[in-house]
């Protein structure tokens, strides 16, 4: 399988780089070398034991190497209706940033838009960041992305700048044939900067999609980032997302990843706390049904003293869906006074649903507060019966119990309107009323 893509790149390396900035092109050769030695992840690797990508890779995807424009206007086909949530709205269609006619008012110095464009126009600014966190990764998908990435999204917030309105990025998958998308995101908050970013992944057609996304996030000293990642894709979509975060002193990160609907999702999230007093709150939720697979693999690295990390991940699995949670917390030798907490709780609401959990705590410092806990169970039959004796139908009672189970993850959302909207979407999802793509206003969806 790798060979097809290796040949593809060898033949089309020029086309890949032709429309791209020097910065993006400068990383390709080394990444290509690395991919050739690493290959795609497979089940024989401990980290991918429960995440079989074989089938996803066996599909003959098209890659839009020649940057053929997608004949859609996302504004026409997509209306993300989060009532009362006013955002600065941007679109990426497949791996292509969608340029708008009008400019969006953001504070001076902020870069927000096409990664490729800004990598050309602000090369020296972005050069120290692009690929810096990801190039050490030993996951083959990452150098694969660097090899093929042509565009994506960048958000750069200069020191001291606070963006008051949340930025919303809608990432659309669209195509009339099976497609592979190599999407790249770069988020940089300099010292004392502040931003909220909401990313909504959304497939507009039920073709087979493989999204290979790499996101690098830099949170500067005393900076604060809220990062919401909402996935609402068709069941024919495979998403492999590698996210790398580094946090400087006294910075805050709130990250909430919600898989509402998908086919196969693999999220690798690496957070390195590199500055003293930094804090990472990482939470996530996955709702599985049918034969979906959701695999969240986290690595939190406490490199310095006085940092805090919280993890809260919950899964609700229906049908014969499978969930995987791997959470590794590393407290390095000098990282005294670390507080690291991890909690993973799962509900398998059918006999066929399966959950695989691997928590790991590695502590090399001796003055730390760390805990981890995981539990997987079924719907509480006593509670179910109790509710039914009050006249609540079994189906509704199950739904209320599942919804209740996810409540604390939703409570971690900082944006109130988004919290309300998410509650509504989650409830709809449990009711089976969530349209294949709930935000579409057109009939593009099949």
């Amino acid at each position: 399988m790798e060979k097809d893509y290796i040949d593809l790149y060898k033949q089309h390396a020029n086309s890949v780089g032709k429309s791209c900035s020097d910065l993006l092109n400068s990383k390709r050769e080394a990444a290509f070398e690395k991919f050739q030695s690493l290959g795609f992840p497979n089940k024989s690797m401990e980290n991918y034991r429960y995440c079989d990508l074989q089938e996803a890779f066996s599909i003959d995807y098209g890659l839009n190497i020649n940057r053929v424009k997608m004949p859609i206007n996302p504004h026409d086909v997509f209306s993300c209706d989060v009532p009362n949530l006013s955002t600065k709205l941007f679109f990426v269609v497949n791996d292509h940033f969608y340029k708008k006619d009008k400019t969006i008012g953001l504070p001076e110095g902020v870069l927000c838009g096409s990664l490729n464009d800004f990598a050309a126009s602000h090369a020296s600014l972005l050069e120290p960041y692009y690929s810096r966190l990801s190039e050490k990764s030993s996951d083959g998908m990452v150098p694969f992305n660097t090899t093929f990435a042509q565009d994506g999204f960048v958000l750069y917030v200069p020191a001291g700048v606070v963006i008051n309105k949340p930025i919303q990025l809608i990432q659309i998958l669209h195509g009339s044939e099976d497609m592979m998308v190599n999407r790249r995101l770069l988020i940089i908050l300099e010292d004392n900067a502040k931003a909220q970013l909401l990313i909504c992944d959304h497939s507009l057609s039920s073709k087979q999609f493989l999204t290979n996304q790499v996101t690098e996030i830099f949170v500067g000293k005393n900076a604060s980032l809220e990062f919401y990642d909402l996935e609402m894709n068709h069941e024919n979509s495979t998403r492999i997302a590698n996210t790398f975060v580094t946090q400087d002193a006294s910075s805050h990160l709130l990250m909430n990843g919600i898989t509402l609907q998908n086919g196969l999702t693999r999220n690798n999230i690496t957070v390195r706390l590199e500055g003293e007093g930094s804090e990472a709150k990482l939470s996530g939720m996955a709702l599985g049904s049918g034969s979906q697979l959701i695999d969240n693999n986290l690595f939190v690295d406490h490199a310095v003293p006085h940092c805090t990390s919280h993890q809260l991940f919950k899964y609700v699995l229906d049908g014969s869906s499978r969930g995987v949670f791997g959470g590794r917390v590393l407290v390095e030798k000098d990282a005294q006074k670390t507080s690291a907490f991890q909690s993973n709780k799962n509900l398998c609401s059918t006999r066929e649903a399966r959950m695989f959990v691997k928590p790991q705590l590695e502590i090399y410092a001796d003055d730390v507060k760390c805990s981890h806990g995981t539990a997987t169970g079924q719907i509480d039959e006593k509670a179910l019966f109790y509710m039914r004796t009050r006249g609540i139908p079994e189906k509704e009672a199950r739904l209320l119990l599942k919804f209740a189970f996810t409540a604390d993850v939703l409570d971690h959302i900082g944006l109130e309107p988004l919290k309300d909207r998410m509650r509504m979407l989650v409830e709809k999802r449990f009711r089976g009323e969530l349209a294949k793509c709930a935000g579409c206003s057109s009939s593009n969806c099949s």
Partner: protein
Amino acid sequence: MLLEIKNLHASIDGKEILRGINLSINEGEIHAIMGPNGSGKSTLSAVLTGNPAFEVTEGEIWFRGKNLLELSPEDRSREGLFLSFQYPVEIPGVSMVNFMRSAVNEHRKYRQEPALSASDFLKLMREKRSVVELDSKLANRSVNEGFSGGEKKRNEIFQMAMLEPKLSILDETDSGLDIDALRIVALGVNKLRTPENSTIVITHYQRLLDYIVPDKVHILYKGRIVKTAGRELVLDLEERGYDWIKQETEE
């Protein structure tokens, strides 16, 4: 007749607990069911409400002219059957408000009435809460979560007030209550009395029956009703215990 139980046999895990219960209850009556531990009192309430853990092996139950055994637990509730649980269940994450709103509106739907508006519903909550002096703070919490024993029992009667059942079964509602809480709960039950609705009080002790005065008292022993009499039987039992009943039965 409101409820008629004919020759009811029921078992759990293959073990027979109820061995031929016969019981009739008319509108407006209060029946006490007493009996030693393990005689089948709670099993009877579980079978009446349709707890799937129990299997009915023989007999019939008719409730307001309907074959109760053919109804799901939720339909039994909507038909007007209510159980105040001996051990109310905690449901973390489900707020009392959402829980009760679901329940009330499901009942209304069953009667083909429109759902209550948010403000009408909250008004109803306020009104019914006062029946058992349930703190408004509790009404805003998750169902029974972190409630004391007494609060849980009061919450059961509050739910009963909300749902206005035709037949209420109070399963050891007095257990774990101090004397003040017992009085509040019992007065609450009495406030909810009408000439149409009936109550089954399952208890070990006399004290609840001092407040909720039964028309008939049944003694359940080894899965059968072995004695039925008026309220004077309660005093008899309090004085003499169950041994004489056991002896009489064995003979």
